[in-house]
């Protein structure tokens, strides 16, 4: 599956979650992340993960895509779990002999590792669900409402507008190089990779000039309009409050 195909914004946004105000979704996710990070246990983060996974499935996001998205954080989580289990703690859980090396797993280290792993799973699942449920342009409007500097938002909008173009370009150049044996051997591979990167940067420069010219012709004076948020809907505010209160109660239990 190509990077483009598993990009969150590429999925159907016509769901009940996408209709909810992005500002509310963002605030709820940030509050829940704070709760996940400050929780001393595993139940709350795992409950949040289960809730987020259900939301993703309800949005008909393929399970494979959710799994692919979580692969990198889970890899890091696995490394941390191994490190904490075998190299942290005092209370020996079991011992084993691996390639002639004696090694002990520690119960307290394992528990610490599990806690961090659950935090990762909880946090990642929240952000993944937010990504699938929020169109980029609405997310940008939410950032603007949160008083993120306009210059930052403008750069983000430019970047988002063109990254799909560059993903396609990179894919095309890479395939062309591969077909001409550009990645046979280390030396050739490194050279091809350098050329690929250079070509993308060059394309970035040229495209930025064309974009600026086209924008100036359409009246661009250095500022871009940003979507303004509508007034909050009472039902959405009540729903958000309910989720945060339920989260708070689970957090305290």
């Amino acid at each position, binding site marked *: 599956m190509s*990077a483009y195909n598993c990009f969150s914004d590429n999925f159907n946004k016509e769901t009940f979650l996408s209709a909810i105000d992005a500002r509310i979704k963002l605030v709820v*996710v*940030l509050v829940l*992340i704070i709760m*996940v*990070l*400050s929780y001393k246990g595993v139940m709350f983060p795992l409950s949040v993960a289960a809730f987020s996974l259900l939301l993703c499935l309800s949005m008909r996001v393929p399970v494979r895509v959710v799994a692919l*998205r979580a692969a*990198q*954080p889970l*890899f*890091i989580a696995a*490394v*941390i779990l191994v*490190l904490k289990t*075998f*190299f942290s703690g005092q209370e020996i859980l079991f011992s084993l002999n*691996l390639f002639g*090396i004696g*090694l002990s797993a520690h119960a307290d280290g394992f528990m610490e590792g599990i806690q*961090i792993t659950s*935090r*990762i799973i*909880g*946090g*990642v699942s929240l*952000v*993944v669900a*937010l*990504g699938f449920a929020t169109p*980029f342009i609405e997310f940008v409007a939410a950032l603007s409402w949160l008083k993120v*500097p306009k*210059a*930052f938002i*403008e*750069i*983000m909008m*430019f*970047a988002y*507008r*063109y*990254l799909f173009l*560059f993903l396609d370009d990179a894919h095309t150049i890479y395939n062309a190089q591969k077909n001409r044996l550009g990645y046979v051997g280390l030396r050739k591979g*490194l050279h091809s*990779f*350098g*050329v*690929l*990167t*250079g*070509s*993308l*940067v060059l394309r*970035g*420069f040229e495209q*930025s*000039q064309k*974009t600026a010219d086209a*924008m100036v012709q359409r009246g661009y*004076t250095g500022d871009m309009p940003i979507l303004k948020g509508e007034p909050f809907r009472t039902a959405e505010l009540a729903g958000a409050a309910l989720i945060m209160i339920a989260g708070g109660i689970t957090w305290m239990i």
Partner: protein
Amino acid sequence: MYSIVLVFIVLLVLPGSVFAMHISEGILPLNWAVLWFVLALPFVAAGIKRMKDLSKNDLSFKPLIGLMAAVVFVISLMPIPVPTAGTCSHPGGTAIPAILVGPFISVLITAVALLIQALFFAHGGLSTWGADIVSMGVVGAFTGYGIFKFLRRCNAGLGVSAFCAGLLSDWAIYLTTSVELASGIRGSEPFLPLLGKIVIAFVPTQLPLGIVEGAMTAGMVTLLYRRRADLLVKLGVIKQEQAGGTL
């Protein structure tokens, strides 16, 4: 020593894809996440100010920075096979904008790319955004920029300077991320031994990846020099009299 060997073996047998040392959502406890945010903010603010200053008289500057952010985003998604680890890994790509547009704007570019990656690709995270900006943006950009400028002053070639900038920038990111990870997950454990284990744990991917990052940065600068030396002159990477000469 045995534990070091074992961590190495574990990394060799773990399958999967390793990303450019992004710290995932949830790894850092709240206090550390906030601290890294506080450290990152002044650099992002400085980057925004510098960009505003430069874009006052040049309407094409903001689009250029935005498109550079898109390029960095794409570069950091490129899968690179790492034979020593049996995995795919991804470069950081922060040395490239640092060399071309300076370290402060590079921090801004990295922050934008990281936020989009965190939100729509689950690389990095919202709570670890500050830590990722500090390692990949601040440390990566300033190391790459500093090494490049230093070597150019020592009359090193453009390609060699760019290679070293990419290589050392990647390794600096790797070390900073290890410090961030060790401080965030250590719990009751002493800091330095854990840091050592984390550094060793990522050696199989990060050492070769640094070389790839160096080659990539050198390839990029060399290609620009050959095809559009005027751009390098405009951005202040080389002087007018150096354009058209040998590398």
